[in-house]
C-alpha cells in the first residue's frame, strides 16, 4: 500500500489541509513548530485510532483548537491500483472510522486490509524512527544492545525483551532456589514444619486400642473386687451377728451353771399381805413419833387461846400491818419536813436581822406610796432673778431703773409664798408614810429597807404557814398511831410497855409465833386423821398388826421382817434369771452351735476386725479402680477430640494449596519469560538470513562503505566484515557503528515483513546528529529502501543532497 494523499480536516495546528505524496518516498521539510511531527502523528492516528485523553497519550491527541471537525482521511493505493480511503473523525473511543474502496464504503473491518493485525505499538516499534529511537539505543549498555539487535527478527522485540526480564523478576519474587524471604520458600518451610508437627501427634488409633485394652483389664479387676466384696460383706455380717451374741452367750453359760431350782416360794397373796401389814405398822409407828415431835406447850396454848378470843381484831391488825407501818413512816417524814422548814426560817432570820415576826407584807399601792418623792423648793431661781435685776440697775437708764426695785419686791414676795407651799406638801407625805409603816409593824427601819425586805417578809410568812400545817398533820397521824397502839396492847399482840418505834417488830414476832403454832396444830390434826383411818380399815391396833405379821413370818419359818424381805428378793432374782435364761436361749437360737464350737470366743472379734479391714482395703481398691476407669474413659473420649490435629491438618492442606498456587504462578512467570525469549530467538533465527541480505546493503551505505558484510556464525553471533576483510564481532565495533548496525537490521526487518504489513516507514528527524557524509548516505539509503517500502521522511534541514523532486516544503502551508 502506498499512501498517496493526506487530507486533514482538523488535527493540531493543521486545519483543512491536503497533501499529495510520492509513492516511493517523500521528504517533508519544515522548521521547528511547522507541524512535521503532527503530520506523522496524524497518519498514525487515522490508521490506528486517536489517542485517548488519558495519561501521556493526551499529548498525542492533537485536538484542534480552532477547527470544528477533528480527523481527516488517508488515501492509499494497492498494487492492483485499487484506491482505499481511511477516514477517521471524532467519535466514541478512538474515533469513528469509515473505509472506502474505490469510493465505495466498505465495513470498518476492511481496515485490516491496510494495517493487517498491527497495533499502533507494533507500528511504532517497527516502522517509526525518531530521535528517541536513536537516543534510546545509545542509552543501552553493550549487552542489552546486542540482545536487542539479536532479537530484531520479531516485531516489538524491545518491549518483549523488557517484558521477559520483568517476568523473570516476578518469578524470582515468588521463589529463588537459594532465597529465604520469597513467599514460596517460606511456605515450603512452613509446610515441612507442619508435617513435623503432624508427625508428633500420637497415633490416634493405637492410643484408642491401648486405652480400650487398659479399660478391659480394669473392668475385669473391678468385677473381681466387687465379687470379693460381696463375699466379705456376707462373712462380715455373720461374724457381726455372732459377736453381738457373745455377751448373751456368756450370760447364758453362767446362768445355766447356776442352780435355779424351785425353793420355798412365798405366795404373792402372802407377800401382798406382808407388804400391807408392814406398811400399816410403819405408818402407825411414824405417827407416834410425829405426835411426840409436835407437842404444844402451855405458853403456846395461851397465845392460841388469846388469839381465838380476839381473832377478829388480831386478824384485822394482821391485815393492816402495812397501814400501821405507813403511819409511822409518814410521821417520820412530816417531822423531817418540819425540821427543814425551821432550818430555812432560821436562815432567813440570820440573813435579815431587822426582820421581825410581827412585820406584815405590804400591797403594791402602799409600796408605790412609800416610793413617792418629796417636793423640792425653788429658792435659787428667785435669788438669780434678784441678782440680774441688781446688775440691770447699773446698765439701764435711770428712768427704767426706777421700776426695777418694784419688780424685785414682787419677785421676793412670790418667792416666799412658793417656798411655804412646798414645805407643806413634804410634811403631808411623811405623815402618810409613817402611818403605813406603823400598820405593818415596820417602823424604825429605813424606808428603802422596808421596801427591799418585802419578799423576805412574804417568805417568812409562808414558812410559818407551812410549819403550822405540818404540825397539824403530825398531830393527826400521831392520834391515829395511838389508836393502833392501844388496840395492840388491848389484844396482847404487844406488851404494855412497847414504844411506838418497836411496834412493827413486836407485831411481826407475834404473827410468826402464831403461824408456827398454828402449823404445828395442823400437823397434829392430819396425823390424827391418818391414824384413825388405819384403825378404821384394819380395825386393829398396832399390837394386832404385829401379831398377824408374826404369823405370816412363822408360816415361812422366817425370824425377821428383813429376812422375809431378803427371802422374797432372792425368790424374785431367781425368777428374773430364769426369765433371762429363756430370753438368752431365744436370742442365741441356732447360733449356739457355732458359738460352742469355738474355744476362744475372742477369736470372732479378732476375725471381725480382720474382715472389716479386708472390706475396707477392698473398697479402697474398688475406688482406685473406678478412678482409673473414669480417667481412662475420659481419655478415650479425649482421643476422639482432635481439634489440634485437625487444625494442623487444615493448615497443612491450606499451605499445600498455597504452595501449588505460588508454584504455578512462579512457573508461569518463568515459562512466559522463556517463551518470549524463545519466540524472539526463533523469529530472529528464521528471518535473519533473509534480512541480512538487505541489512548488509544498508549497513554498507550507513558506514560509508566501511563494512562490507554481515554474517552469522555457528553460535548465532553476528560477525561484521570490514572493507579490509578483517572480521569483528558486535562487541568490538564502536557504539556509533553498533547503532548503524541496529538501524540497518531494523530497516531490513521492515522490508522482511513487508509482504505481511505494507505501510510507510516514518522517519522523524532521526538522523539530525549525522554528519554531512552520513546524511548523504541516508538519502541514498532512503532511495534504496523506497524501492521496497514507501518512506516518509521529515526534517528541518534543507540539504543539498535532497532529491528536489521528492521534497515537500511545509513553509507557506
Amino acid at each position: 500500500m502506498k499512501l498517496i494523499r493526506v487530507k486533514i480536516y482538523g488535527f493540531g495546528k493543521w486545519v483543512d489541509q491536503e497533501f499529495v505524496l510520492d509513492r516511493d518516498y517523500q521528504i517533508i521539510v519544515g522548521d521547528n513548530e511547522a507541524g512535521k511531527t503532527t503530520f506523522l502523528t496524524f497518519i498514525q492516528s487515522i490508521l490506528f485510532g486517536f489517542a485517548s485523553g488519558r495519561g501521556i497519550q493526551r499529548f498525542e491527541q492533537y485536538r484542534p483548537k480552532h477547527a470544528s471537525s477533528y480527523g481527516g482521511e488517508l488515501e492509499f493505493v494497492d498494487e492492483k491500483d485499487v484506491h482505499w480511503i481511511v477516514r477517521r473523525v471524532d467519535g466514541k473511543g478512538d474515533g469513528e472510522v469509515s473505509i472506502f474502496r474505490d469510493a465505495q464504503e466498505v465495513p470498518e473491518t476492511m481496515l485490516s486490509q491496510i494495517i493487517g493485525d498491527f497495533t499502533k505499538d507494533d507500528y511504532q516499534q517497527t516502522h517509526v524512527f525518531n530521535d528517541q529511537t536513536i537516543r534510546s539505543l545509545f542509552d543501552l549498555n553493550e549487552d542489552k544492545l546486542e540482545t536487542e539487535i539479536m532479537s530484531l527478527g520479531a516485531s516489538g522485540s524491545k518491549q518483549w525483551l523488557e517484558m521477559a526480564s520483568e517476568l523473570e523478576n516476578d518469578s524470582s519474587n515468588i521463589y529463588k532456589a537459594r532465597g529465604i524471604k520469597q513467599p514460596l520458600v517460606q511456605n515450603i518451610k512452613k509446610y515441612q514444619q507442619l508435617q513435623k508437627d503432624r508427625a508428633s501427634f500420637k497415633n490416634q488409633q493405637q492410643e484408642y486400642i491401648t486405652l480400650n485394652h487398659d479399660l478391659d483389664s480394669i473392668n475385669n479387676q473391678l468385677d473381681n473386687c466387687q465379687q470379693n466384696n460381696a463375699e466379705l460383706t456376707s462373712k462380715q455380717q455373720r461374724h457381726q451377728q455372732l459377736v453381738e451374741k457373745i455377751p448373751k452367750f456368756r450370760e447364758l453359760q453362767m446362768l445355766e451353771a447356776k442352780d435355779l431350782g424351785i425353793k420355798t416360794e412365798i405366795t404373792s397373796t402372802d407377800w401382798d399381805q406382808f407388804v400391807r401389814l408392814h406398811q400399816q405398822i410403819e405408818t402407825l409407828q411414824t405417827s407416834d413419833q410425829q405426835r411426840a415431835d409436835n407437842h404444844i406447850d402451855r405458853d403456846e396454848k395461851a397465845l392460841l387461846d388469846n388469839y381465838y378470843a380476839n381473832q377478829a381484831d388480831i386478824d384485822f391488825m394482821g391485815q393492816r400491818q402495812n397501814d400501821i407501818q405507813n403511819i409511822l413512816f409518814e410521821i417520820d417524814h412530816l417531822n423531817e419536813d418540819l425540821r427543814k422548814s425551821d432550818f430555812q426560817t432560821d436562815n432567813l432570820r440570820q440573813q435579815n436581822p431587822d426582820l421581825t415576826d410581827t412585820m406584815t407584807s405590804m400591797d403594791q399601792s402602799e409600796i408605790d406610796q412609800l416610793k413617792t418623792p418629796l417636793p423640792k423648793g425653788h429658792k435659787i431661781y428667785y435669788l438669780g432673778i434678784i441678782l440680774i435685776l441688781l446688775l440691770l440697775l447699773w446698765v439701764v437708764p435711770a428712768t427704767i431703773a426706777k421700776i426695777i426695785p418694784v419688780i424685785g419686791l414682787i419677785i421676793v414676795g412670790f418667792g416666799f409664798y412658793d417656798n411655804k407651799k412646798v414645805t407643806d406638801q413634804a410634811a403631808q407625805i411623811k405623815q402618810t408614810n409613817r402611818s403605813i409603816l406603823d400598820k405593818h409593824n415596820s417602823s424604825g427601819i429605813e424606808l428603802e429597807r422596808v421596801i427591799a425586805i418585802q419578799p423576805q417578809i412574804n417568805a417568812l410568812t409562808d414558812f410559818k404557814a407551812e410549819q403550822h400545817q405540818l404540825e397539824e398533820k403530825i398531830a393527826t397521824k400521831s392520834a391515829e398511831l395511838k389508836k393502833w397502839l392501844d388496840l395492840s396492847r388491848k389484844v396482847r399482840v404487844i406488851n404494855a410497855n412497847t414504844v411506838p418505834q418497836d411496834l412493827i417488830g413486836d407485831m411481826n414476832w407475834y404473827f410468826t409465833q402464831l403461824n408456827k403454832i398454828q402449823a404445828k396444830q395442823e400437823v397434829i390434826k392430819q396425823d390424827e386423821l391418818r391414824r384413825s383411818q388405819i384403825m378404821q380399815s384394819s380395825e386393829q391396833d398396832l399390837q394386832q398388826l404385829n401379831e398377824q405379821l408374826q404369823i405370816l413370818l412363822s408360816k415361812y419359818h422366817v425370824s425377821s421382817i428383813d429376812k422375809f424381805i431378803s427371802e422374797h428378793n432372792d425368790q424374785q432374782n431367781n425368777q428374773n434369771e430364769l426369765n433371762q435364761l429363756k430370753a438368752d436361749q431365744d436370742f442365741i437360737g441356732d447360733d449356739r452351735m457355732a458359738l460352742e464350737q469355738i474355744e476362744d470366743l475372742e477369736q470372732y472379734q479378732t476375725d471381725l476386725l480382720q474382715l472389716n479391714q479386708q472390706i475396707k482395703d477392698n473398697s479402697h481398691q474398688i475406688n482406685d479402680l473406678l478412678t482409673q476407669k473414669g480417667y481412662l474413659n475420659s481419655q478415650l473420649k479425649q482421643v476422639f477430640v482432635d481439634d489440634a490435629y485437625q487444625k494442623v491438618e487444615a493448615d497443612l492442606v491450606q499451605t499445600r494449596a498455597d504452595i501449588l498456587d505460588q508454584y504455578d504462578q512462579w512457573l508461569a512467570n518463568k515459562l512466559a519469560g522463556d517463551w518470549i525469549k524463545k519466540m524472539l530467538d526463533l523469529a530472529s533465527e528464521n528471518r535473519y538470513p533473509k534480512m541480512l541480505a538487505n541489512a548488509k546493503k544498508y549497513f554498507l551505505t550507513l558506514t560509508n562503505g566501511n563494512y562490507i558484510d554481515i554474517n552469522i556464525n555457528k553460535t548465532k553471533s553476528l560477525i561484521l566484515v570490514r572493507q579490509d576483510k578483517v572480521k569483528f564481532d558486535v562487541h568490538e565495533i564502536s557504539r556509533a557503528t553498533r547503532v548503524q548496525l541496529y538501524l540497518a537490521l531494523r530497516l531490513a526487518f521492515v522490508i522482511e515483513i513487508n509482504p505481511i504489513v505494507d505501510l510507510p516507514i516514518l522517519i522523524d528527524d532521526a538522523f539530525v546528529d549525522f554528519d554531512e557524509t552520513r546524511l548523504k548516505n541516508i538519502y541514498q539509503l532512503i532511495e534504496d529502501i523506497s524501492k521496497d517500502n514507501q518512506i516518509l521522511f521529515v526534517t528541518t534541514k534543507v540539504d543539498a543532497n535532497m532529491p528536489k523532486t521528492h521534497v515537500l516544503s511545509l513553509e507557506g502551508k
Partner: protein
Amino acid sequence: MKFIHAADLHLDTPFVSIQNFSKQLQNDLRKSTYSAATKVFNTAVRQHVDFVLLAGDTYDNTERSLNAQEFLKNQFQRLKDNDIQVYLIYGNHDYYRNDFSAIKFPSNVHVFSDKVSTEILNTHDGTKVGISGFSYYKQHIEEDKVGEFPARENVDYQIGMLHGSQGISGEYAPFSLDGLNSKAYDYWALGHIHKREILQRDPYIVYPGDTQGRNLNETGMKGFYVVSVVNQQSQLEFIPSSTYVWERTSVLVDQADTLDSLNQRITTNLAVDVPTLFTIEFSNAQRLNPEIIRSIERGDLLNYLPQTELGVVYRIDLNYQPEKKLDSIDQRYWDDAAEQIFDLDDIKDFDHKLYNLDIIRDHIDSPEFLNNIKQLAQSTINKKFIGEKN
C-alpha cells in the same frame, strides 16, 4: 434386588481457603463429607437395598480417623438393624495399615483384604450375588490386579469392586475395559476417579464419582448410584448427595465495567437452587480498567459481594486474553517456541528442591497440569501486555 454403589466418601476432607467464610459455613463445609455419606446410608435404608458397596477412599486420611470410624460404625449398625450388608474396600487414600481400624464394625460389614476374594450373598428376592474385590494395603498399586479376580462364580449376579484408574500402567491398580470384560461380570463397581462416569453400559463399568465435591475443580452435583437388578438387567439411578456444589462460571467483562457492575454480574449468577460455591472467572480481564484489576486482586470485590441464600463466591479468577492473537507476523514463532518451552521434563529439572517436594511432584504429574500452566503463562503475558500499554 437392589444395591448402592458409592465410592470416595473421603470423610474428614479439609477444605482449602475457606477461612474468610462465616464460621457457620466453614463448619457446614467441614461436615459436608459426613452429610453426603449420611445421605448414602439414609437412601440405603429408605430404598430397602440389599447391600451397599463402598469402593475405596471412604476415609480421606487414615492417620486419624476415629471420628469417621465411630460415625461409620453407627451408620453400619443402622444398616444392620435394617438387614443391609456392607461391602467395603480400602483405596489409595485409606489403604490399610496396622492398628488402623481401631473401632470394630458390626458383623454386616465385609471388608476385603489385599488379596482378591469373593463374598457370596443371597438377597431378599433370592438372587445369589458374588462380590469380588480387594483393598489397598499400600498407597500405590502398580501391578495388574484385574488378573487376580476370579472367573465368574456360580452365581446369578457377579460384581467386581475395584479402586483404580483406567490405563495400561499407573500407580492406582491400572485396568483396561477389555481386562474387565474378560471376567464376564455383571457389574464393575469402580472407585478412585472423582468425576462420575459410566465407562461402559453392557456390562456396567461405573465410576460413581465422589459423594461431595472437595475443591473448586470437582464441579457439579456429586452423588452415587442405586442399582436395581431385575432378571439380571441392571438399572442405574443417580442420587445426588452434595451438600455443597462447586461451580465455575465465566463472566465476560469489558472496559465499561465498574466494581458495581461486576458485582451485579456476579450476583445474577448466584441464583441457584442448591448451596453452591462459585469460582468466578472474569474473561477478557485485560479490558478492565487497571484500577479495577488491582482492586479485584486486593480482594475488594470478593469481600464486598452481597451474601445470597445459597450461592457463595469462593474465588475470583482474572483471565487475560490477547486483544488480537499475539502479533500474527510472529505467531508461527510463538507456537514453535511454546512447543519447546512447555516440556514436562524441562519443568521437572528446573528446580530440584521444588521437584523433591512430594506435593509439587504429584501436582506436576496430574494430567491437566501442563495445559493449565500454559494457559496461566499466556494469561500472564496478556496481563503484562496490557500493563505495558496502559
